[in-house]
């Protein structure tokens, strides 16, 4: 006997109840549970659907689906970092490297002209923070709407929130602090150069993550996620 559509839906619901919210993982687990329930019915046709399901779920052990989720997150985290790095590197090759260096130089020149690092760099950092928060807000909102419309969450779309690059965030803040500490009102060339470089690198990272990679996500992940295309 084959499982009907209703029962398949129940399996999706079951995986959700056991903390697997993502369709990419659910579909595999659902297929597994469905197969094993169907096999159980061959041996013991009297078993109800729910009984068979509970018996099969027990086989996953006390942690249930947790290991499955964890391993997948690790995999996606690595994959995501690789994709970001791929696009980030482009800014250090011709022709984009000219833009990168140009931005650093412009920032430095401005700092020299104003004879100030602290306030200028703090402002730049503020702008970066503001713009990227706005971008992140836009992207996550669009994603939530999409999830609502399709009823499907994809783990790979959420990798951005798992991916933890933000310890780096403190670096530019430290620079601004440092420039104050050394500062004693004098403009310092070393701090200005270092700050300009770090700020540009940081802005680029955010730009790549939220503007470039985010749009390419389904394309890049499509290769490892054939089900994404199918279920559209």
């Amino acid at each position, binding site marked *: 006997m*084959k*499982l009907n*559509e209703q029962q*398949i839906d129940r399996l999706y619901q079951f995986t959700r109840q056991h903390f697997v919210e993502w369709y990419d993982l659910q*579909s*595999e*687990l*659902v*297929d*597994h549970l*469905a*197969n*094993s329930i169907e*096999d159980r019915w061959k041996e013991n046709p009297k078993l109800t659907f729910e009984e068979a399901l509970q018996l099969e779920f027990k*086989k*996953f*052990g006390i*942690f*249930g689906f947790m*290991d*499955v989720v*964890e*391993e*997948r997150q*690790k*995999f996606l985290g*690595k*994959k995501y970092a690789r994709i970001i790095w791929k696009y980030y590197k482009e800014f250090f090759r011709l022709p984009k490297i000219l833009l990168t260096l140009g931005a650093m130089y412009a920032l430095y020149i401005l700092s020299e002209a104003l004879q100030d690092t602290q306030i200028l760099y703090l402002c730049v950092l503020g702008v970066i923070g503001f713009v990227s928060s706005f971008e992140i807000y836009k992207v996550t909102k669009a994603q939530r709407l999409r999830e609502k419309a399709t009823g499907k969450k994809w783990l790979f779309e959420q990798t951005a929130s798992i991916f933890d690059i933000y310890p780096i965030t403190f670096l530019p803040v430290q620079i601004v602090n440092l420039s104050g500490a050394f500062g004693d009102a004098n403009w310092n060339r070393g701090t200005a150069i270092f700050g300009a470089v770090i700020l540009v690198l940081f802005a680029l990272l955010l730009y790549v993550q939220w503007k470039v990679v985010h749009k390419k996500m389904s394309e890049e992940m499509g290769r*490892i996620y*054939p*089900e994404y295309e*199918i*279920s559209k």
Partner: protein
Amino acid sequence: MYGYEITQKVKEITKGELNITEGALYPALHKLEAEGLLDVEVEKVDNRLRKYYKLTESGQTETVNRLAELEEFIKNMQSIVNPKLSY
């Protein structure tokens, strides 16, 4: 092969002696996929999605390497447990 098929196949080949637990199977498959040793394909079967895994080329060479590693390991274990003392 898909996940469930793998568990059944292993049971069949080893006549039930080796039983792959579900809790270990999928994390292992995803890990191998991450290492580039497995390729995936998805098909719609009986109103559900089925994910098939197959060894990539590097997966095939790696299988040979890992089996050799395992053999080496067993040999070492045997000589540790059962040392040939010469004196």
